[in-house]
């Protein structure tokens, strides 16, 4: 699995007035074998498992969300 980039995606949550009350990482946007995918933060997901394996091996860094 050739993963060339990975970046966290955040999701805001809002109160009833539309004010942001929290912002959390919700997924990783990764380029895998040349295609862009949205990968959930689920260890049972094969792409996320491989991303984390490569991160732990020092082969990949997940960039912060923009």
């Amino acid at each position, binding site marked *: 699995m050739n993963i060339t980039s990975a970046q966290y995606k955040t999701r805001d949550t809002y109160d009833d007035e539309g004010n942001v009350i929290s912002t959390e990482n919700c*997924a990783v946007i990764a380029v895998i074998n040349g*295609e862009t*995918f*949205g990968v959930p933060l689920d260890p*049972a*997901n094969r792409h996320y498992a491989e991303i984390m394996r490569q991160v732990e091996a020092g082969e990949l860094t997940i960039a912060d969300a923009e």
Partner: protein
Amino acid sequence: MALIKVKTGGVDNSVNLGRRNLIINGAMQVSQRYGYNSAQTDWNSYDASDRMFKRTAGASTSSVQTRNDDAPSGFIYSDKLTITSQDSDTYIGRGTCLEWNDISHLRAGYSDAKTITLSFWVKASISGTYCFAYTSYVSVHSDGNAATSYVTEYTVNSANTWEYKTITVTLPTSTPSNWDGSNGGNTTGLRLQWTQSRRATTNSYETATTDSWISGNYFCTSSQTNMGATNGSTFQITGLQLEVGNTTPPFEHRSVGEELALCQRYFQKISGGSDAFVVAAKGQGTASVDASIPLTVPLRASPTMNSINSRSFSDGGFVASSSTTPTALQYSDNNTLLAVNCGGFTGLTNNEVQNWGPVSNTLTIDAEL
């Protein structure tokens, strides 16, 4: 009064009772992603027959895998791999992963571990010795973490001829820590892998020990026919059946609808086309939507989704478009709705009802093992 005696002995050996085959899509009936000449060289790809992966290492050899309509009597389809660029040091294997939930009754790792029999049809352009391997995994697809492997050899006697093979194995009665589902019952329990090409220089994944459960991540022996060294060589399999016991009843044909539903636990897709499909959504802030995608069956795990162009509509009509990749937001193992979030919009209203969907792309929902 007529007396009818029901013979109880030997039923397992003589009657195909149905629901015996542990392999999903063994007759290659389902191919949701289907496409000819979609060459893949990555380590773990699903791109022809559903539930069939290809794994490569070394990757100097290119190959194409397709669902093919050349099959032995009794079948319509086979899974075919064709070498398109040769090299003698590339590992290539095709196979399928079985979810631990579906094999826990085999009792691998316990004193009452079951005997299982695999049967399949194979056709290869090069006759000779080929290898098949079972592998258990501690963690999902972390190469090197496989704990236990079983490698066996079989012979393709004649080139370009369909041949029927069976392999009977008793599962190991030790190393239960790798087989107890502690990583979650929805992860890989047993991987079945047919090798087509070996790494003749580096000898990766090779063992000299056959027909025995051994520690490590092994797929083949040095006797494996090296199809990767021959451009244009082909390898086809179909009629994959794995069942408890040491007999080989006829293949259990299931309806295409049943097989599709079983496959969709691992992969689903929504084919777009001029805003043909939209689902209920709401504005999440002004730049993203939260949407609920109806699933045909609950997914195995939270899925990976591909990048698409999408649009959102309210009761006033078109609101905004986005080219941002959607992501799964909430997953439940028994839920037939998948919550997703898609950003990249402008001008939405928080909590306003929207209808959201792909413009013309196919949205893929991938929860494969």
